[in-house]
């Protein structure tokens, strides 16, 4: 499907970066979300601010952080606070514009499972668990998900709902009273999917060279398609240059 000059991960990172707005305060994870934020900062969103769940505000990492607790996030940052504070004063208080979420399963209503495959008490696969995501999904104004597009990652219903998407539909989430607006987009290596008016995911854009049937084949339910289906633009030379040369020169994440 892809142009040989960029990888699937780069395709996801570039498209996720384009969803970020200048001035956004982003609750960042390491890996691909970190790259998407740094790419956005170097292109259309110079005033994007990165907050890490370890309690680092306004980080300017000189290298790719090895983990969420990397001192490179701290040296030269604007502020450091405790973990309790970053989740209360920043996230719960409503100061976070964007959160990134990830999980092993994402379902039709964009609910996320990062806990177990199979039964909770006798798991077939024990996954990492929530980490920050239960609260990020609830309290960040907007959330984005980056994940490869595989059928097993997109079941109709998650085995365990670690983090709330739209539950059984947008009305249920709204009734719950959580402040965040929930997932806004799922960016995969094939397409971008966004929740429709009922909170059900629909394909809103296909990446260059990808056809709809490829998306459907890799999705565990009959996926809706937007009436205004678009096609994403391929990564620009500038975007790829920044990723390859400035952000991940050794190709730890992008390859």
């Amino acid at each position, binding site marked *: 499907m892809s142009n040989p000059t960029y990888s699937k991960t780069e395709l996801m990172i570039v498209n996720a970066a384009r969803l970020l707005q200048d001035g956004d305060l982003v609750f960042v994870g390491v*890996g691909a979300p970190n790259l998407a934020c740094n790419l956005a900062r170097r292109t259309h969103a110079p005033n994007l601010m990165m907050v890490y769940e*370890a*309690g680092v505000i306004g980080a300017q990492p000189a290298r790719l952080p090895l983990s*969420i607790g990397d001192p490179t*996030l701290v040296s030269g940052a604007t502020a450091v606070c405790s973990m309790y504070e970053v989740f209360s004063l920043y996230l719960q208080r409503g100061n976070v514009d964007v959160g990134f979420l990830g999980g092993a399963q994402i379902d039709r209503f964009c609910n996320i499972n990062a806990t177990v495959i199979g039964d909770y008490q006798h798991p*077939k696969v*024990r996954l990492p668990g929530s980490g*920050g995501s239960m*609260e990020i999904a609830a309290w960040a104004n907007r959330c984005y998900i980056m994940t490869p597009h595989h059928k097993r990652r997109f079941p109709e219903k998650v085995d365990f709902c670690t983090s*709330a998407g739209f539950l059984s539909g947008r009305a249920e989430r709204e009734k719950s009273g959580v402040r965040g607006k929930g997932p806004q987009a799922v960016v995969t290596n094939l397409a971008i999917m966004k929740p429709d008016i009922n909170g059900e995911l629909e394909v809103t854009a296909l990446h260059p060279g990808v056809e709809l049937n490829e998306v459907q084949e890799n999705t565990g339910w009959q996926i809706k398609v937007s009436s205004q289906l678009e096609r994403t633009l391929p990564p620009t030379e500038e975007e790829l240059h920044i990723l390859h040369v400035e952000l991940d020169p050794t190709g730890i994440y992008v390859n």
Partner: protein
Amino acid sequence: MSKLCSLKEAVAEYVSDGDLVYAAGFTHLIPFAVGHEIIRQGRRDLTLARATPDLIYDQMVAAGCARKIIFSYLGNPGVGSLRIVRSAIEAGELEWEEYSHYSMITRLSAGASGLPFMPMNLTAAPDLEKVNPNFRRVTDPFTGKEVMVVPPINPDVAVVHVQRADKFGNAQIWGILGEQKEAAFAAKKVILTAEEIVEETVIRSDPNRTLIPGFIVDAVCHVPYCAHPSYTQGYYDRDNTFYLQWDEISKTTEGVLQWLQEYVYDLQDHAQYWQKLGEETHQRLKVKEKLSSPINYGEF
């Protein structure tokens, strides 16, 4: 009164079989040396609590120290799966109790504050609440809305690694602060390890930097490089090679047992461990100096 002692003495005195242990440090300042000493002294039936179990609890579980684990994120940070803990849970060989980061740290904050519970806003995610009875709801008497509450956690012993402390246990930490302060105040006993033991005057030259007051500390141990293979801001970098190697080592029981034999049981203490890592590793983990601008407290 000086609380200085060796780590061997501190573990012998303050960590007992069956204890609830909280080794603090959110992916920074992880007190690996204390985990190794607990393994060396053969503690059993521990309940190990940490937001991120990281390799320290993977090693302690592999060594048979633990009966139960309390956590909010289970992974080899930046690398992948935490194989030992994960397979012990999948095999039904390890009890577990699970939170999100915020609910885990909120329990610790309640414990540190002497409160019977602390509130959190609802998250709408239904399933963790169903499997963990420590998530409960109360009605907010002001708005009538429901609020989630979690009870305090008060570990029998907290282990906290810091950059510098005086012999009384007054401790200063910088870089990522994680839940170090909350763990220390929540616990019944505190073992403090420090990269440097400094004069009391150094601590008193910058009281705003002190996170942990000595009077809540039981043992102060001088353990340079205590956090290896994790980081200590200003002192050394993460040994990422080891984190990657552990992903291989922990694939087989034999691999883990052999590593434990060579790097824990066969060694006397953390100084020997650090020596054994060798000069190449020492050089590789060094960091260049970058000093803070001093501030003026003023003579008052």
